[in-house]
């Protein structure tokens, strides 16, 4: 579970986030929507403990200890940047991150996850020889290597073609069914709504909508979202 309490973030004179409070319960799938510059990626980074808010607090609660290091081990973060070292092989990338996350029985776990994403045959080739799709699959492997409970997805569809996007959507669905808590930022409204259990709309750093989705009010929300975005 994550609880954000009155999160504000100022960069100099600019207010990026304005007094945002939210709770994400275990197993939820929340999608953060909003126009460019609304602060959604920033909010995601604050919640994922990458950035510190200027005021307010972010509290993560999982099984086990509350040490920041242990909390970070429960978090996975996927962005459209792969976080992979091009010069290292897939195996070495996973080995390195696995050591940082102190993954137990790392060799087996890495084999297992490479098998899952279908990269076992290429795992000793350096990443720079990979195609876009393979890099995407390897970054998914990196994301899931330490078996995080809480997944943050920051514009994961950026730079993917139609097919890559579909594969990713499927994967995300499966992960959610496995019981992972998800928090995703995207500006693809349809794709976001398709996946989400709950949406959160940000505009100009403030939360303007937060609610569960049912198919009946989808149109209302779409209009609401359009209206919000267009007053920009």
């Amino acid at each position: 579970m994550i609880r954000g309490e009155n999160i504000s973030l100022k960069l100099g004179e600019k207010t990026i986030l304005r007094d945002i409070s939210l709770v994400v319960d275990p197993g939820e799938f929340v999608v953060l929507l909003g126009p460019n510059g609304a602060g959604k990626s920033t909010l995601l980074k604050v919640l994922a403990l990458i950035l510190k808010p200027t005021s307010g607090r972010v509290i993560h609660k999982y099984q086990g200890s509350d040490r920041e290091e242990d909390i970070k081990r429960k978090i996975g973060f996927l962005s459209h940047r792969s976080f992979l070292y091009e010069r290292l092989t897939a195996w070495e990338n996973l080995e390195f991150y696995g050591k940082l996350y102190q993954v137990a029985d790392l060799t087996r776990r890495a084999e297992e996850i490479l098998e899952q994403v279908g990269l076992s045959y290429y795992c000793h080739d350096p990443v720079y020889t990979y195609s876009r799709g393979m890099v995407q699959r390897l970054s998914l492997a990196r994301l899931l290597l330490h078996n995080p409970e809480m997944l943050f997805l920051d514009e994961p569809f950026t730079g993917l073609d139609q097919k890559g996007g579909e594969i990713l959507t499927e994967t995300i669905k499966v992960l959610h069914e496995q019981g992972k808590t998800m928090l995703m930022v995207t500006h693809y409204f349809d794709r976001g709504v398709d996946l989400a259990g709950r949406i959160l709309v940000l505009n100009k750093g403030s939360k303007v909508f937060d609610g569960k989705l049912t198919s009946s009010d989808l149109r209302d929300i779409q209009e609401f979202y359009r209206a919000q975005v267009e007053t920009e």
Partner: protein
Amino acid sequence: MRKIFWIIWKDLAIELRSREVTGAMVLFALMVLVIFAFSFLRPGEKLPPEMIPGVIWVTVAFAGMLGLNHAFLPEKQNDTLTGLILAPVSKSAIYLGKVGTHFLFLLLVEIIALPLFFIFFNIQMQGSVLYLVPVLFFGTAGFSGLGVFLSALSVHTKSNELLLPVILFPLLIPLLLGGVKATGIVFNASWADPVWVGAYWSWLRLMAVFDIIFFTLSLVLIDYVLEV
């Protein structure tokens, strides 16, 4: 911490594959030596002894500078720096890992360039070469420590390779001064004279103090630098 070791391991694995950074550093150091030979020597003559420490430290500083530009820059590709910050590693561990790598690279340069320096310039020294070891150690450690810190600082700016030398060298002056003076004593002074021995130790102490101060400061401030 074991994670510092893994960060060094990762950088060494990358370097072992490409050999770009160390290759460039070593070659550059050798070329600097050759240029010094052209400027200060006439064929058949020896290098004036008072030039020795300057030649050594300018070479080390230039080669070290070249390596620093690459301490954090590669982490920008694919945003692996965020990947590191995200992982359960403290920012000081990331910093220390990077210092470790740069220290090893610079040490390698010294191990290759120094014997060549003796050969090229036909050097004989007064003190034992063992006295040179702590000077090189403290000098290299301090250079890597402060250099990697400022490299982390400048990686968040545009054209950081322009900025880094300009902000690094003024701060390094005490360390380089200590290094040059202590090296000069090792090479040229008479080791029977307690005054020189005393001077050697006080310069060495200055370098050690410099290292301690800036390592402490860097560890305190690195969170602010990597958080932007």
